[in-house]
């Protein structure tokens, strides 16, 4: 009986989680401007319509630039921080790591507002790179959390062995450390990319005149006739996300197999 209740809960939970996402492609292919049942018929015209929206293209380009830049930046910073926190002991380490991880629980609107005030205060024009700055800030804690786990599971004597065999500290990092934490790095890049791509508040506050994808979508929701096209866009994004996760999981599993490591759970 207990198992039954649990199963019901799981089913309801999954419906709640995925029903809206399932609705996306349904209405994206529906031949009507109004989002309501019954469906009117099959069409791909909403997808075709996406091709004629120059602002969308600009927003997409901006979002990609921002997501790629901030995921690379956050992951790079994450590597240094995770490395330092797992390998070295230094005074005030706990407090410092706490401060670095703080944006994880800080309301984004606070981060966005304080960043905006600082930037305006020192007279910096808002642009794509200010969004990159904000996104790097919120992605770095995630990157550190993921990479710390990767560095923690790395046997310290592997690096010592390479150093003992004549490599420099730097080449040891390149030849041993980096390949072995690569699954963590890929995870970090991917998570940061996803966080940045759909982040709204910071992008809205800091983008100036440059729209990002979520900001653009939000602005279009005011025009009812645009909604089916937005549905089509959403469908593409969902498909791309699934594809991206699948690719990342493939590489992660291949990495595990190559080093014979135990699978400690991934995304899929």
């Amino acid at each position: 009986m207990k198992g039954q209740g649990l199963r019901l809960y799981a089913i309801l939970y999954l419906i709640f989680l995925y029903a809206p996402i399932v609705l996306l492609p349904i209405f994206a292919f529906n031949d009507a401007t109004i989002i309501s049942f019954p469906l009117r018929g099959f069409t791909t015209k909403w997808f075709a319509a996406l091709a004629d929206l120059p602002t969308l293209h600009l927003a997409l380009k901006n979002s990609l630039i921002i997501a790629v830049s901030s995921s690379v930046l956050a992951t790079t910073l994450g590597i240094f921080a995770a490395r330092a926190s797992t390998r070295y002991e230094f005074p005030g380490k706990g407090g410092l790591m706490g401060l670095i991880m703080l944006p994880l629980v800080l309301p984004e609107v606070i981060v966005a507002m304080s960043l905006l005030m600082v930037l305006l205060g020192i007279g910096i024009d808002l642009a794509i790179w200010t969004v990159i700055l904000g996104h790097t800030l919120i992605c770095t804690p995630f990157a550190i959390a993921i990479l710390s786990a990767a560095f923690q599971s790395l046997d310290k004597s592997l690096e010592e062995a390479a150093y003992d065999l004549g490599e420099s500290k730097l080449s040891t990092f390149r030849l041993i450390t980096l390949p072995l934490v690569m699954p963590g790095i890929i995870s970090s890049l991917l998570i940061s990319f996803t966080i940045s791509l759909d982040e709204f508040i910071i992008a809205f506050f800091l983008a100036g005149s440059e729209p990002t994808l979520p900001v653009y979508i939000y602005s279009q929701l005011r025009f009812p006739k645009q909604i089916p096209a937005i549905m089509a866009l959403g469908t593409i994004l969902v498909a791309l996300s699934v594809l991206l996760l699948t690719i990342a999981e493939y590489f992660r599993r291949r990495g595990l197999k190559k080093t014979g490591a135990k699978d400690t759970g991934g995304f899929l």
Partner: protein
Amino acid sequence: MNTVPHAAPAPIASRPTMIEFRDVHKYYGDYHALRGINATIKAGEFFSLLGPSGCGKTTLLRTIAGFEDISSGAVLIDGKHMADVPANVRPTNMVFQSYAIFPHLTVEQNVGFGLRREGGTSAEKARRVEEALEMVGLKGYGKRAAHALSGGQRQRVALARALILKPKVLLLDEPLSALDKKMREQMQVELIRLQRQVGITFILVTHDQEEALVMSDRIAVMFEGQIAQLADPETLYRRPNSRQVANFIGVMNFLPARVLTEAAGRIAIDVQGLGQTEIDATQAPGAITGGETSVGFRPETLTMLYEGQTTTERETPGTIEEVVYYGDMTYYDVRLDGVDSPVRISMRNVFGRPVLDIGTRTRVAWSAGALVLFR
């Protein structure tokens, strides 16, 4: 027991010095991990650091490799001060306790890792890798993925990888502790053979006294960051310089004793249960101060006499309190008359002589020459 053919190597004392520790101290924060280590290790020697877990063996080994800075004192390798020499240019290579096999590389990439920095054609390097693999009995394993190897094979890869660079000193941190008993005994013999073959200094860290006795030319017994005794296996076994060393290596019986007189290299003592006897001064390797002390003797230096058997040695009566049968051997715990606690006697089981029962009265033969006097 393992046997290895002897090639009559030069006596240890006459060989040149390879490693020298000069009053080495090491602190981890407030913790005093190495407390004044002084020792020299000779070229081509199989040297062991033996001691209980946490006594500083690994720390001392890592000061040779260059992974651990020392707080004071000096470490010299082949006559050169190592203070400013980083680990990656020291003439030492290490076999790690975890083996530290690079899991993302093949066996031959692991073994050839140290050659990356060396000159020479790739054909030449491939030949050296093949040679190294052959030396450790892994010929033909080169293309395997390193992570798919068994414990014993990983150990061999780690050995080949460290030896391929022809270091002056090979450092081994408990290399056999992860292997099962059979494999361990096999690898002990192979390590001795390998050391004879390459002729370089091996420094082995182990907490297993039997392993140290079997493999080493000399052993440094360590307790709490200090070397308690440094000697060849036989001396350590027969003439331990303290009760602590005696207890750590093999089984040792102790009886309370009193020093009566000391003159001309002879010491007269009175031992509980055994009575008065005289020993040579060399049988008291630790400093003795006279007065109340104790003597020790190994279980196999005692013999239980059978009905009617006579001996030219001294004999003492006693009662058997415990019998432990090992097949080839039997261990008896015998309480000698007038002694507080039983002593252990090991007897080889001989055909035609039955194992004796608990409670049997017996006579124990012993000789003064087998006694060790402690302070």
